Every structure is written in structure tokens, then in C-alpha cells.
């Protein structure tokens, strides 16, 4: 059977922690700090709009690019919030989540053998999507002691004649680390000099706690070298609706639309209508959730510090990427034992780059009572081990 599978797929790195995932899914009564999605349900105003869309019989295809009113809404939102200007006619594409947008982006720009720069640790999909698009991922490791931030000189060093694009995800999964205006300006200088495309996954942009989020595309002169990806999943707790969007130059968006029309056709219409409602009236609920994440972040940070974990205080998203070195256990072992002994799930760091074996990702997408209980169990686990 193996013979009949594509070589590319066969060569894709199987996720080393699949087995651990299966272990978690097979267990009952787990307190999970291993999720990559909000613990909140989609705010009712938005759900209600989705239900209403179904009641009204909105069950058809939409234009490939997505409903015009949603694109227009996104265009206005980006303009008023970040002074980002995109023409809803030809510079915005609605996708089924940022995952699809990233896939389309890479397939639209990468030629066989082109390199795509990806800072580590990173979201699991970037490398495999690059390979599936025929490209070569060129990883740059970032270290805990440098705050998991990409250094401009490392970026410049990684650029070769074959470099087509760099992927920046900020605030990032799994570290929650983000970039300031000044740091982005340093990247911009290099990106403009070498004329490569900067694909930014800014899905956690609205969940920035320490400083205002700045889209790379909004820096002066960055426009034609940037592709801005965002969506509704995280900030509006809409993961299951699968609505993302890509904004960029007409050429890139139209190339992406070409692939999208053959593969996905369009994003689900009822989800698009719900997303439109999120733009119109979801802000209050989103701000409330954001404040809740921010409070949890403070709480969990102090607790983890007290217990003795080394980490960077995340500036956004809802994750901590913590070092398990002081516990004498590698991340995967730590996760496995913690799950077996205390029924608490976290994600081993290897998932986000093979060099992060001494880390685990812990998400604070759980209410405060659960977080308290989880932290107490982690402490108990460490005490028993000694």
C-alpha cells in the first residue's frame, strides 16, 4: 500500500507526539491545559446570527472570494483599527481558517526548491505546508534566553538567493511572544532589502496584553512585501466556524483565489454571516474574554514562577512555553507522567520544533478554578518525584 502513496506525504515528518495525543484522548476526567482553542463558547450574538442565517435559508455557495459584505467589513475594520488599506474587491480573500490561508499563500508563491524561513518554535503546520507546496523550510531557532524572539541578524543570515518568504506568527503559538513596532521595523529593513514576502499569521493579534498589536503590513513601505493573515477563531472563540482571511497585493490574492476556487470553492456561508456579525457587534464580548485571559496570564505566570519553572512571560495569545529542565524530565516524559499521575494534559515541546525537547506548552484556556487545580496537581507531581 505504501507504494501507492505520494513520496512527499511519506516523507512528511510524522508527528512524534501523535501517540501521546492518543493517550490523552483515551483518558477520562483530564484537566486539559493542552488545547489550542478558547474555552469560551462563541458569544451568543454571533451564534444567533449563525442560527438566523440557517433559518433564512442561507445554505448556498458564496463567491469564491467570500461574501462581499464580509470583505467590506474586514476592510473597514482594518482601516479604522490599524490604518491598513485593502480594497475589498481584489485584495481580500475569505478562507476556511488561517490554516487554509497559509496553505494557499505558500502554494501561490513557492516554486519547487524555494526556501521559506520559519522561526522556531512554531505552530505545527508551517513546515509541512511549505513542503507540500514544494518548498524547503529554512528554520531559525530562537532561544528561551533571547525571549524566543527572532533576531534581525539571524533573519538576514538565513536569507539566500532561493528565499521566497518568511513566516512570522505574533503573538505566537506556542510562546505567546510578540514584536514591537521597533522590532518589526528591523525586520522590514531586511525584507525590503532582499525583496522577499513576509507572510504574517496574526490570528492572536487581538489578544495582545502588553503593547498594541501592529500588523507588519501597516509599516510604511511594507505593503507590497507583506501578506496579512487573520481570522475569527481565537479572539471571538469561533474555532469551529472556520473563517479566516488573507489580505495583500492583488496579484497574490488573485493567485490564492485561483487555488481556493478549485480546492475549497468558498468558506461556509453561514459561518461567513456569523463572522460578519462578530465584526459588527462582537467587540464587547471579545474584550471581556481578552480581559479574562489577561488575568489568567498574570495568575499562572506568578504560580509557575513560584514553582520554579523557567519561561518567558508571554505578551499575547493564551500559552506558556515552559522549560522542564529544572525538573530533570524531558518535555515528553514530563507530559506523559503528569498525565498518568495527575490527569493533567500539556503539549510536549517537540511538537513545535525538534530542538524543544525540554519544554512543554501549557495553555490557559480553562477557567480559574481549573487552572488552580491543575497547578496544585503539577506541584504535587513535582513533590512526589523528588
Amino acid at each position, binding site marked *: 500500500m505504501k507504494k501507492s502513496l505520494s513520496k512527499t506525504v511519506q516523507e512528511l515528518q510524522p508527528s512524534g507526539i501523535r501517540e501521546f*495525543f492518543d493517550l*490523552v*484522548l483515551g*483518558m477520562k476526567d*483530564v484537566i*486539559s491545559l*493542552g*488545547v*489550542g*482553542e478558547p*474555552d469560551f463558547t462563541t458569544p451568543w450574538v454571533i451564534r444567533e446570527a449563525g442560527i438566523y442565517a440557517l433559518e433564512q435559508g442561507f445554505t448556498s455557495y458564496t463567491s469564491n472570494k467570500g461574501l462581499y459584505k464580509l470583505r467590506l467589513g474586514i476592510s473597514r475594520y482594518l482601516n479604522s483599527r490599524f490604518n491598513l488599506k485593502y480594497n475589498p474587491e481584489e485584495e481580500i480573500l475569505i478562507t476556511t481558517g488561517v490554516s487554509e490561508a497559509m496553505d494557499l499563500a505558500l502554494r501561490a508563491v513557492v516554486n519547487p526548491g524555494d526556501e521559506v524561513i520559519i522561526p522556531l518554535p512554531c*505552530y*505545527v*503546520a508551517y513546515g509541512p505546508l511549505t513542503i507540500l507546496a514544494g518548498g524547503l523550510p529554512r528554520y531559525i531557532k530562537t532561544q528561551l534566553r533571547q525571549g524566543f524572539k527572532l533576531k534581525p541578524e539571524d533573519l538576514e543570515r538565513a536569507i539566500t538567493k532561493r528565499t521566497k518568504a518568511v513566516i512570522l506568527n505574533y503573538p505566537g*503559538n506556542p510562546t505567546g511572544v510578540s514584536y514591537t513596532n521597533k522590532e518589526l521595523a528591523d525586520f522590514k529593513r531586511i525584507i525590503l532589502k532582499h525583496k522577499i514576502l513576509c507572510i504574517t499569521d496574526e490570528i492572536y493579534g487581538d489578544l495582545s496584553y502588553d503593547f498594541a498589536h501592529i500588523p507588519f503590513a501597516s509599516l510604511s513601505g511594507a505593503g507590497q512585501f507583506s501578506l496579512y493573515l487573520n481570522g475569527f477563531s481565537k479572539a471571538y472563540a469561533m474555532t469551529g466556524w472556520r473563517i479566516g482571511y488573507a489580505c495583500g497585493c492583488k496579484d497574490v490574492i488573485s493567485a490564492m483565489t485561483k487555488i481556493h476556487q478549485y480546492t475549497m470553492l468558498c468558506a461556509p456561508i453561514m459561518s461567513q454571516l456569523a463572522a460578519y456579525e462578530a465584526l459588527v457587534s462582537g467587540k464587547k464580548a471579545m474584550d471581556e474574554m481578552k*480581559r479574562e485571559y489577561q*488575568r*489568567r496570564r*498574570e*495568575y499562572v505566570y*506568578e504560580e509557575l514562577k513560584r514553582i520554579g519553572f523557567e519561561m518567558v512571560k508571554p505578551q499575547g495569545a493564551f500559552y506558556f512555553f515552559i522549560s522542564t529542565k529544572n525538573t530533570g524530565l524531558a518535555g515528553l516524559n514530563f507530559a506523559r507522567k503528569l498525565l498518568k499521575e495527575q490527569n493533567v*494534559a500539556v*503539549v510536549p515541546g517537540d*511538537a513545535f520544533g525538534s530542538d524543544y525537547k525540554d519544554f512543554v506548552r501549557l495553555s490557559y484556556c480553562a477557567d*480559574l478554578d481549573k487552572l488552580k487545580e491543575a497547578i496544585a496537581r503539577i506541584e504535587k507531581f513535582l513533590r512526589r518525584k523528588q
Partner: protein
Amino acid sequence: MDEILEVLEKDARISPQELARLLRRQPEQVKKAVKGFEKQGIIVGYKTIINRELLQDNNNFVSALIEVRVTPQKDVGFDKIAERIYSFPEVKSCYLLSGTYDLLILIEGRSIHTVSDFVAEKLASLEHVRRTTTHFLLKRYKEDGVILKRKRENKRIAISY
């Protein structure tokens, strides 16, 4: 609204230490602020929301909403008569409204009879009360922002990227 209030309104059991940690303030500072809110009457109490429908002895409990039309008095308007009404311990809530009637009060009692006795003997007989309309409460769906139906378990998968 101060974020202290936002947190306390959702969970009054939280300790000042925890509250301080959540908001990145000093525990002393938080304690002082809470005391201040209490003194100013912004925080008026801490209580538990009970879903009485699930209690064994729920049979001995009825609630009614009563619309009350009153004659306002010179100089004090509705306040004086409202005070006479809300001072009864049976009255759990009392509001002045615009519209076709003046006061809306929530009464709790052990049976329909205790409630109707209260209306007939205490309330309707008050000097400035002109008319009352009693609505017995049949079912509670949501109380103080809390949906009373027990939540279904979270169906989110336990681990994801």
C-alpha cells in the same frame, strides 16, 4: 467599572490575594479598594445564587411579581411609599418603573396563601396604594446573569495544537 468589581461580580469567593495576583496589584491595595467600595455602598453584599428548583423542599416556596400603582406624595414623590413597601422582609426586590404602573416588587413566601395574604392585608391596604396586579412566577430560567439549566459538559477535544 473597576476590574476588581468585574471579577467579584462573577465570583465573590475569590480572596484578596488571588484578586491581587490576577490584576497585578498589591494585596493591601486590593483590600483597601474593596473596603472602599463597601463603604461607598458600591458593593452592597456577597451572596450565593441558589437554584431552588432543585431543592427537596422547593414545594414550600413561591415567588410573585407584583405591579403596584401608587399615588405619589407631595415633596417625597414615590420614595416614601416605596420605603414602606420594601421594608417588609417578604419583599426581595423593589423597583420604580416608567409605564403603566409605578412599582414592581418581587415577593417570596411559603405558599400561594402567604403571598396573597401579604398582598391583601399588608400591601393593598396601604394608604397610597391604588391598585395591585399579582403575577405568580412559574419557572426561573436565568437568575442574576446565571443560566440555571445545568451546563452540558464541554465537548472540546482535550488536546490540540
